[in-house]
């Protein structure tokens, strides 16, 4: 797209883009560190994550202010308008991702007993998947690449599927050994949070699609998370 006749308008939009890119980088880092903190039960690292969340919150407010000011000053139309609306929405998603990562980190304080390695490996795998999704969707936003964004959108079902199997696995552990219930519940919440981070990545992907095509995506997203309808019954194990 050619530049605006008024250069300062381009600067405003570029500033928004750069703020989101910084915010995205922060969110990625928070996610990586929170999973690491929980798997190693590193409470120092967890505290760093918890404190760093403030910065993401501040950036969300800054993006919002910049967006509102740009709307007021430039009366954006068409793609510029979509760009600004999408910036606001992506900032919200990134802020939520930050909150969820913070929540994952917090749980390293709650789990006192060592967790068997086989339990944390699922969490790690999920963390890696979510991180890859987040990185990819942020890259596609920077490049305004809706094809790549759609790839992210379709691959969320991998995270859902993994979450689904971890959910079942954790249920089994809890049934086998009630002393594990505390740690397993925390892990369950942590994995649920990571699964939600994946959902936010797909939200961002949908926004990129809207930004590029000017209309919302119409397909139903494939979903593999059926934990909400999984019956819990000890008899299942018989």
């Amino acid at each position, binding site marked *: 797209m050619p530049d605006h006749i008024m250069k300062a308008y381009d600067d405003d939009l570029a500033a928004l883009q750069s703020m989101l890119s910084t915010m995205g980088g922060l969110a990625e880092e928070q996610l990586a560190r929170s999973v690491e903190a929980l798997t190693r039960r590193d409470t120092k690292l967890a505290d760093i994550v918890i404190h760093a969340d403030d910065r993401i919150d501040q950036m969300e407010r800054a993006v919002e202010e910049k967006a509102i000011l740009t709307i007021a000053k430039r*009366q954006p*139309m068409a793609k510029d308008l979509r760009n600004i609306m999408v910036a606001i929405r992506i900032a919200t998603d990134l802020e939520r991702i930050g909150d969820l990562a913070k929540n994952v980190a917090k749980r390293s304080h709650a789990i006192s007993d060592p967790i068997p390695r086989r339990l944390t490996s699922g969490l790690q795998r999920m963390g890696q998947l979510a991180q890859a999704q987040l990185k990819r969707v942020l890259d596609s936003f920077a490049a305004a690449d809706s094809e790549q964004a759609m790839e992210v959108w379709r691959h969320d079902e991998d995270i859902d599927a993994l979450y689904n199997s971890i959910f079942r696995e954790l249920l089994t552990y809890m049934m086998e050994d009630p002393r594990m219930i505390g740690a397993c519940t925390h892990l369950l919440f942590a994995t649920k949070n990571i699964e939600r981070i994946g959902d936010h990545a797909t939200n961002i992907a949908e926004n990129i699609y809207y930004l590029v095509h000017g209309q919302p995506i119409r397909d139903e997203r494939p979903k593999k998370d059926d934990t909400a309808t999984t019956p819990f019954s000890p008899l299942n194990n018989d």
Partner: protein
Amino acid sequence: MNDMTPRTIFTPAPPRIIAERPAKVVAEGVNVHYGEKRAIHDLSISIPDKAVSAFIGPSGCGKSTFLRCINRMNDTIAGCRVTGRITVDGHDIHDRNLDVVQLRARVGMVFQKPNPFPKSIFENVAYGPRIHGLAKDKTDLERIVVESLKKAGLFEEVKDRMLQPGTGLSGGQQQRLCIARAIAVNPEIILMDEPCSALDPIATARIEELIHELKQNYCIVIVTHSMQQAARVSDLTAFFHLGNLIEVGDTDVMFTSPQDKKTQDYITGRFG
């Protein structure tokens, strides 16, 4: 296509407002020449009744030229030649049997600069109905004048000084007086050529509010340089460029997701 004329894009095809409302004005293959220069290339468009259609585009794109085709104002310009077919309610406006004066009574026009006659406020509005013989008697004429001023949202401001000159009003009031004058002859279509460009924001807002009310009863076509104004008041937006009608669409869609790159560049302020 060998033709230089790009095909008009419809967003969506057909625009919702065109599908929903009966067409008041239909243009088919209209070309306008000023001497050797072709000002409008093979233009076809359907303008819906009881709605506001806005023509936008950079200066010299042909939007005002086409607007003036609708009431045959171009006839008055030496060297201007209009070909193609334009119908109002299905009747060809270039029909030999058609009285141009009658056509212009049905298709009123409001210009960029308010141009009241150097007469009283009352006379400004009464002039049209009188020459067209629309009033039965003096009382009837007064009724038409008051009603037109009311419809133009000016009556309350001028009711105590109806005999004072129209030129003594503020710019915004003068423009509403011109709208009242256009309404007084009972038109079906009102053409507005940048009606707010000489007005301050408050007067502009009043005119826009008026346009919004008038569309209940009239087919309104407005040429504007203000994209925001087109977005605010119109139902249908048509984008002109270099004499071509590039894209026509529902205003809601045109300003959020236009299809053509030229439209996109123009409305986002990227046109070099």
